[in-house]
């Protein structure tokens, strides 16, 4: 219903032949760009909130299951089921509980990212080399100190990789949340699915958002894992060091 209204709205505003032909019209895009700002922001908020909550839950579950290995299978199965439920079905299943709108959309998106993040955090922790854990324990780190000072930092590359997948897939999935009445770029796309200019701009913004989030998380990862890049830089500096040492002798 709302889709129909929007369609009428877009058509009524113009007599341009390009628009009338549902074509790709740069002029129309420039004139009408502000109508995409709010849906875009909605999309950003939905994605960020869903990934943040999903990360909080999945990260906690992973830390918990890391020390209590028996939890891994049940958690994987449950989050696996949540992952496979089609989101549109999820929206309608949630309707009687959370109603239409932001909450329903967020719950469905969160449910979707849990498995991705859980698996990556756990894999990251499991991949910390045994000798490093052994050395840490042997020096007198408690389990908790070992986890937060050694294991979690060393798992960061994999944790962040999981976050990147989660963020980009959530951007795509969030184009469907208008079925739950939560707006977003999807609402714009479906507002006039035959109008190329509209689909290109709304869809393009979604792609841009996904790329931007991906790049942002990558930048954060680089910033918080300086040792990963340091080893790449080491070659010239090591040569230099050797030369300096030789001179000193």
């Amino acid at each position, binding site marked *: 219903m709302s889709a129909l209204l929007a369609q009428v709205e877009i058509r009524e505003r113009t007599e341009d032949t390009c628009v009338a032909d549902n074509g790709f019209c740069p002029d129309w895009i420039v004139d009408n760009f502000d109508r995409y700002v709010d849906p875009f922001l909605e999309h950003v908020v939905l994605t960020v909130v869903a990934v943040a909550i999903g990360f909080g839950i999945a990260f906690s579950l992973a830390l918990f299951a890391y020390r209590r290995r028996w939890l891994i299978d049940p958690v994987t199965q449950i989050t696996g089921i949540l992952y496979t439920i089609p989101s549109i079905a999820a929206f309608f299943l949630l309707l009687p509980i959370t109603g239409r709108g932001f909450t329903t959309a967020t719950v469905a998106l969160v449910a979707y990212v849990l498995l991705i993040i859980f698996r990556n955090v756990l894999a990251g922790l499991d991949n910390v080399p045994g000798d490093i854990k052994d*050395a*840490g324990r042997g*020096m*007198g780190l408690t389990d908790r100190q070992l986890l937060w000072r050694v294991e979690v930092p060393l798992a960061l590359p994999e944790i962040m990789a999981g976050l990147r997948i989660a963020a980009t897939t959530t951007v795509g999935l969030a184009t469907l949340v208008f079925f739950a009445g939560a707006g977003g770029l999807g609402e714009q796309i479906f507002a006039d699915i035959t109008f190329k200019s509209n689909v290109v701009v709304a869809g393009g913004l979604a792609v841009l958002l996904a790329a931007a989030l991906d790049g942002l998380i990558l930048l954060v990862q680089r910033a918080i894992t300086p*040792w990963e890049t*340091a080893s790449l830089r080491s070659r010239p500096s090591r040569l230099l060091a050797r030369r300096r040492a030789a001179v*000193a002798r």
Partner: protein
Amino acid sequence: MNSPDSAQSPGPSPLSRSDAATLEFRSATKVYPGQREPAVGGLSLTVPAGEICVLVGPSGCGKTTAMRMVNRMIDITDGDILLDGASVKNRRPAELRREIGYAIQQIGLFPHLTVGDNIATVPRLLGWDKARIRARIDELLELVSLDPHETRDRYPAQLSGGQRQRVGVARALAVDPPLMLMDEPFGAIDPINRERLQNEFLRLQREIRKTVVFVTHDIDEAIKMGDRIAVLQQGGKLAQYASPAELLMYPANRFVEDFVGADRALKRLALQRVRDVDLWKAPLVRVGEPVAEARAKLGDAEVPYPLLVDGDARPLGWLSERGLAGERVEQELRSNPQPILDLDDVLRDALADLLSEEAQYGPVVDGRGAVTGVLSIEILSHALRSDPDEVPSGADAL
């Protein structure tokens, strides 16, 4: 790096300047769940304070298990281990481990921390203040022959294998622990660097005098590093606990004999230096000396030829009959004093030198190059038969 745990520690630890500890295994036994045979069965031995005790044996003999029971990385099934008379079983494992240096073959440096932060790990756990930690990092890096300015802020991936190993040792020494546990610490290093690191560690040990439990499967490393060697056989049974010399001279049983190897007599020569044996007197002559006097000197010497030396008693060559033909001693063109041996050479190297020169004997010189005596194959073969009580152990040989 602040956690609730470090906040509990009340300021700088009292063990910051500790002496070496005495370590005692008292029928220490480890049986893994589901196994009938113990991995370590009733191990009893005492490591005196400040000595290196090497646990050596074939793989699966329980040497690493025995070592890991000391800092409770592996729990003791039966018996006890005492550190300065106090049972390790009464200690909280994490606290106990902070007082015991720990170095393993894979080193296990934290790749996400700089060298300085790696070394600072235990000091931070014990709540040292920043200035003290910083000073300690530099002090330790210098101790293990690394340049603090170059190394402190680098990540482990930026170091060579040998440098990483040194940082590992520095990290284990961070809070000056009274006991060090070292599990094949040089096992993953190439032979040349391993030899260097071994020598460096022995030099370091002469300074710091820690009690060290050193695990290796390499009998040569055990002989080189150990003040005492505990040879373990399958099931963690102690086959023999002795000084290197005694082990080589009197292997307790067939197992030890096989493990030490058929060349154990030769290995013993690595424990003694030239200065440790009774040298022959050298019949020294100088150019221009009357031949009659020179011949007189030969009379009570074990060597058949006189040794021509210069004014500072440095060897020039052995004289043959032709050199003694005239009125006075003359220098022979083809005379040759090789091999010249040093008082500080180990006997094995001296023997190798004699053999490679195809010589029966060679002049021995002191630090200034002056001849102090003659070493011969005969002396060496006598040394091989001598009693180990006269043989100093590896670390005391200097």
